[in-house]
């Protein structure tokens, strides 16, 4: 059994999601290599080489790989797939974009969003917004997996894998990068933060999110949102937590003015401790919250900030 992890990185740095995918791949029970595909991506490769348990880092560099667009990425991964029994990527938007393309080119049925590796060919994944868990056994010769990062611990440091340059496959020339609008923030990333505080429709405006952001800054937390808050334009799309947004499992999740629809719960119900602040004591979110506070958020959230200040936060 040999697995290749397709890394999530920014060329200049490795992302935490990669370390989590590596630990999922290790559960397959064999050797794990990591592919860094990018442009001027040696710094990311060097970081990957330090992950514990990584046998080898493959580094493919080309201008066409700079943004990891699906078409050249899939061509590359397929060209390298030969010796591997499993191809594994984190279920980030990149992984979700690239891996099914790889799977189809290899005539493999991908297993998406794996939350547990139960054996080299047996996996568990959520279906129906996490209302059911399905265990499947793959009959394909190669396995193509995306793994839910919230379900795996990041592989630690301490490795010293060799970095081997590999050629980029020919660019199919089907797509071209134009531009990117990335949110700049000093806060931790939503999917790796220890604490997440999310606002819902009840925030009522973009400006009002400031009261949540102040609490986030006191706690070193990431900020999330419900779909309703994103759809209304109160929060950017990349803050959406849920079935069709990001899945998080922090130590502490604080849901503010969020009712607790199944689609939202799908993205946060594996958090260690859940707090709900909602003025409706019947709100479904209270059924899964460890600590519920029935209150008007416009009073409770600023008060929370003051209480945290008292603790010296």
């Amino acid at each position, binding site marked *: 059994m040999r697995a290749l992890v397709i890394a999530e990185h920014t060329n200049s740095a490795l992302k935490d999601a990669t370390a989590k995918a590596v630990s999922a791949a290790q559960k397959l029970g064999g050797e794990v290599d990591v592919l860094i595909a990018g442009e001027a991506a040696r710094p990311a490769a060097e970081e990957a080489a330090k992950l514990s348990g990584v046998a080898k880092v493959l580094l493919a560099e080309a201008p066409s790989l700079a943004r990891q667009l*699906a*078409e050249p990425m899939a061509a590359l991964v397929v060209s390298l797939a030969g010796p591997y029994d499993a191809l594994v990527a984190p279920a980030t*938007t990149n992984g*979700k*974009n690239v*891996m*099914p*393309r790889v799977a*189809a080119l290899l005539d*493999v*049925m*991908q297993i*998406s969003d794996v939350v547990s590796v139960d054996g080299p060919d*047996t996996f568990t994944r*959520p*279906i*129906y917004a996490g*209302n*059911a*868990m*399905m*265990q*499947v*056994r793959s*009959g*394909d010769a190669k396995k193509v997996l995306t793994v839910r990062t919230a379900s795996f611990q990041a592989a630690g440091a301490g490795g010293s894998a060799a970095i081997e340059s590999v050629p980029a496959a020919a660019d*199919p*020339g*089907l*797509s*071209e*990068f*134009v*531009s*990117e*609008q*990335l*949110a700049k923030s000093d806060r931790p990333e939503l999917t790796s933060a220890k604490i997440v505080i999310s606002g819902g429709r009840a925030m009522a405006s973009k400006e009002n999110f400031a009261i949540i952001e102040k609490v986030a800054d006191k706690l070193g937390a990431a900020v999330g949102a419900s779909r309703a808050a*994103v*759809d209304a334009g109160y929060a950017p799309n*990349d803050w959406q937590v849920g*079935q*069709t947004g990001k899945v998080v499992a922090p*130590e502490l999740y604080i849901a503010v003015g969020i009712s607790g629809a199944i689609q939202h719960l799908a993205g946060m*119900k594996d958090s*260690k*401790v*859940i*707090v709900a602040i909602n003025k409706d*004591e019947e709100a479904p979110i209270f059924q*899964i919250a*460890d*600590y*519920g*506070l029935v209150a008007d958020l416009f009073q*409770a959230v600023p*008060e*929370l900030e003051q*209480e*945290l200040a008292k603790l010296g936060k």
Partner: protein
Amino acid sequence: MKVLVPVKRVVDANVKVRVKADGTGVDLSNVKMAMNPFCEIAVEEAVRLKEAGTASEVVVVSIGPQAAQETLRTALAMGADRGILVKTDATVEPLAVAKILKAVVAAEGPQIVLLGKQAIDDDANQTGQMLAALLGWSQGTFAFKLVKEGDTLTVTREIDGGLQTVKLKLPAVITTDLRINTPRYASLPNIMKAKKKPIDEKTPADYGVDVAPRLAVLKVSEPAKRKGGVKVDSVAALVDKLKNEAGVI
């Protein structure tokens, strides 16, 4: 320019499904079914392309049981021109769906295939990408905005860090995210009109596609349940619990 929109019949988004006691699946008897919400968004986008004069015809296709015809009728009522039902009672995995769609594309010759990014039953998020791979076409997943200029399509995509814009060579496969549009409700006259629009019936065998599953479902189980917790009566009490009981701040 023809646009093909594959649509899936799924459990209604408001239904909380139950796992069957014998662990073989979820109980779908007497459960409300509907068009997958992301497919609705794809149909809406295709109809808008037609209304803008960019598309000349919108063809919808569904792979599923006879009842999937209702899903096609819904799409026709929203403004699609005609439907194709690829009838099967089997559970068809995304890879096999993509293979059938590839054959439908060969027969229909669309320039754009517009799909939802995921179906809310299996939550796989694969079919569009797989279809693009099998066709050797470009792909624009999780679309937030589409602009067609000549033989290119500029697609803004929802990605983890924000938005990304790419330029795709046509023909292309596009998968829709939540924010690209708000699907219309079909008006009564359009629902009546849709009844007269043609729906062709086919089977996977007509396209020579083997739909035998690659994945054996070993077990379907309930997710771990969370116990409800306690209500606190003040913010100060909450902070105290978080610090001294849960130890998370």
